[in-house]
């Protein structure tokens, strides 16, 4: 007979405010098997935990039920408490009377009744719990970082620094990401390339880091400590081991009319290319969509001029398989497409640009060599209008409901840089709110207004109309003067919202990591575990988790690295003991369970059984490998003979819960 203790938590007034905790403790005390029942203000506090420990010892409890917050919050805490008092940690059940009761019901009577039902459900379950012991699995001492932007670079560097092998996978031909395209960084205005490229070089030179550029993750199998990943190395048509990055091929290539994607299509490059001078790895890549040789077999100039003989038109995609203990997602972001915002004339006029395009236009390595010129006629712009929140904070289908966070600051930066370099240029910024939380951020924005004379206008642009003379007529509201402004601008810069990279969604499916409705990865806990995904062994770095600027991204990248190092440093991982097991006497060897198992954890063994007539008979029975089983329970339902069951969530336990609810 079980001796069960019940502990009802007030959680301050979070639970006690709507649930009569005394009545709950009293009612649950009368349940069969319960020998002790009490309530306390904060069960998770040290005093509360001591209360539990003392009760376990004094009453010889064989199982405990804590009526408190969600098990996702404190199940681990109370399991440790039980273990400290000598009780098996899996003899603990949590009744969720906060998130699923006190917080959603306002009526005390209703909430109390429900809390009692939830409590007795947990009691019915714990009465059937069995002590479980976690087994241990080894950890592969190697990490995978997906995405080679500043987030991925920093994470890889930090992990490598701790002495672990890191593979960095980047889908573009070079690492560097968005930061490589940016000209200057706020709030210090240091040049992005000057602080990024040394880190890229560090990555390339670090012997613990292996860069897979122009590669993508093809499939992910396995689980924390032991992921099995296939990486697709896309064909560059250039032998990486031979190419020296001299760049002669890019000069001689006759296909000069290929849009330069690194400059966002603002100028052209050759079909064989190195994205930018500081690219890592500095290896040429052939753009198969534009190369004449690959399209119709007529050209071959690059192959002729390459002294190293690195060009290989027959190169195929390669697949590499590798084991990892941990995976970091750093897939980053892109500005949204502005096709839905026809009012800003982005598709009509080349002089309406996004902020990222402006970065390239102002960059010394950009299409104009660092001189800001109108894309249409290469003249100097005298009036520039910035429009903030284009697609951000937009709850219609066109945009994104969230604040993209970085736009206020980079717009202030752009405005300031333009006014600094071209004092004859008038700069107008239309804003809804200027959001500058961050160290030295508001001071930076104020400098733009006070020292550089940027015209900030509280309002929004309603329409941009390209004029026959090449000007752009901008119509917008000034809410403070209550006027409608009409500005003849030479250029309009749109602060487009940012969204997670399109590769993130299929990757999340592969990793079984959850995402929110905007396709940002969700963290395990919004406050306390911000760099971990709820899926064990998957970590988050950078904008893939939510909009953030470079300092925050670097901070999060290092935090993710610390978490990875903490995981890889462990000699072995305690695995989840809630795994499936088969009753060999009932199993008829039908293979139904093997077919549904997503992990291949079930195999069949021939086993001798003693029959009633004292003969032995060999039968084929299922056997579960507990190190591989993740405890989903698909097999338990597939089993036609009821032989398969799941520890911690057994058929009997769930039946008992159903009974307790329906009682």
């Amino acid at each position, binding site marked *: 007979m079980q001796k069960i203790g019940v502990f009802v938590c007030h959680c301050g007034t979070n639970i006690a405010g709507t649930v009569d905790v005394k009545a709950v403790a009293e009612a649950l005390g009368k349940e069969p098997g319960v020998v002790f029942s009490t309530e306390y203000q904060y069960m998770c506090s040290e005093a509360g935990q001591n209360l539990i420990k003392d009760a376990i010892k004094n009453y010889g409890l064989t199982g405990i039920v804590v009526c408190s917050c969600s098990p996702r919050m404190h199940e681990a805490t109370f399991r440790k408490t039980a273990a400290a008092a000598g009780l098996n940690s899996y003899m603990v059940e949590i009744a969720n009377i906060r998130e699923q009761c006190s917080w959603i019901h306002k009526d005390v009577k209703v909430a109390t009744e429900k809390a009692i039902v939830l409590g007795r459900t947990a009691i019915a379950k714990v009465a059937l719990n069995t002590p479980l012991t976690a087994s241990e699995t080894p950890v592969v001492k190697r990490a995978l970082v997906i995405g080679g932007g500043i987030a991925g670079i920093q994470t890889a560097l930090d992990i490598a620094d701790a002495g672990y092998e890191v593979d960095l996978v980047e889908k573009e031909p070079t690492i560097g990401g968005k930061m490589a395209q940016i000209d200057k960084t706020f709030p210090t205005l240091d040049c992005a390339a000057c602080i990024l490229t040394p880190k890229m070089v560090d990555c390339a030179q670090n012997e613990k880091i292996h860069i897979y550029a122009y590669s993508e993750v093809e499939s992910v199998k396995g689980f924390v400590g032991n992921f099995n990943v296939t990486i697709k190395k896309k064909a560059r048509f250039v032998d990486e081991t031979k190419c020296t990055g001299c760049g002669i091929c890019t000069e001689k290539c006759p296909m000069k009319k290929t849009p330069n994607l690194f400059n966002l299509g603002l100028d052209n490059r050759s079909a064989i290319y190195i994205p930018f001078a500081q690219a890592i790895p500095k290896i040429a890549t052939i753009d198969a969509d534009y190369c004449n040789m690959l399209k119709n077999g007529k050209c071959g100039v690059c192959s002729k001029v390459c002294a190293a003989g690195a060009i290989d038109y027959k190169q195929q995609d390669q697949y590499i398989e590798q084991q990892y203990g941990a995976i970091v997602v750093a897939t980053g972001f892109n500005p949204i497409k502005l096709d839905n915002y026809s*009012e800003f004339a982005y598709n009509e006029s080349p002089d309406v640009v996004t902020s990222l395009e402006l970065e390239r236009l102002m960059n010394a390595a950009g299409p104009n060599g660092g001189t800001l010129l109108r894309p249409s006629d290469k003249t100097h712009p005298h009036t520039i209008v910035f429009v903030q929140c284009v697609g951000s904070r*937009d*709850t219609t289908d066109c945009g994104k409901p969230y604040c993209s966070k970085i736009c206020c600051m980079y717009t202030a930066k752009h405005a300031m840089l333009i006014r600094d370099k071209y004092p004859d240029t008038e700069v107008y910024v239309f804003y809804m709110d200027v959001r500058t939380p961050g160290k030295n951020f508001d001071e930076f924005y104020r400098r733009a207004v006070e020292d550089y004379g940027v015209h900030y206008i509280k309002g929004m642009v*309603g329409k941009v109309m390209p004029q026959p003379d090449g000007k752009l007529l901008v119509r917008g*509201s000034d809410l403070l003067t209550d006027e409608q402004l009409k500005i003849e601008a030479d250029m309009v810069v749109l602060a487009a919202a940012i969204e997670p990279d399109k590769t993130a969604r299929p990757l999340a499916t592969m990793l079984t990591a959850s995402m929110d409705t905007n396709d940002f990865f969700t963290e395990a806990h919004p406050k306390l575990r911000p760099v971990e995904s709820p899926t064990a062994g998957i970590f988050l770095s950078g904008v893939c988790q939510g909009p953030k600027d470079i300092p925050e991204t670097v901070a999060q990248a290092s935090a993710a690295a610390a978490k990875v190092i903490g995981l890889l440093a462990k000699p072995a991982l305690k695995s989840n003991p809630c795994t499936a097991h088969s009753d060999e006497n009932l199993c008829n060897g039908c293979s139904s369970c093997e077919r549904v198992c997503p992990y291949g954890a079930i195999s069949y063994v021939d086993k001798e059984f003693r029959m009633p007539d004292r003969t032995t008979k060999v039968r084929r029975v299922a056997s579960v490998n507990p190190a591989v089983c993740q405890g989903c329970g698909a097999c338990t339902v597939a089993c036609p003979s009821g032989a398969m069951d799941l520890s911690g969530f057994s058929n009997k336990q769930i039946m008992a819960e159903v009974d307790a609810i329906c009682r």
Partner: protein
Amino acid sequence: MLTSKEKEQIIRSSGADVTKCMRCGKCSGACPSYDEMEYHPHQFVYFVEKDQIEKLLNSPSIYKCLGCSVCSERCPRDVGPSKIVEAVLAMAVRRQDENHLKAENIPGMVEDDTPGQLLVSAFRKYKK
């Protein structure tokens, strides 16, 4: 704060949720009739939220609105200022005790060169 009957009625008949407005002013930035109006699209939303409907009812602005709905089209929060202008206008018309324009009378009043959009917006405004 007690909500007036007028505000409730405006919100009900327009179907607009004024609390969604984040005061960006894009509606007024887009309005082609802005200079003609005393109160502008964003103020219609704000005044309804602040329950100052009398101001709007007595303003000539409600007759200056072209009914082009560009403010609602541009609104990033789906508030729909034009729906509010229409609702206020309808309330003003109702207060005058009778509809000034009846749908069946319109064909007789239309000139050949009247733009179609004007007709549609007139219907939308007055056929309440």
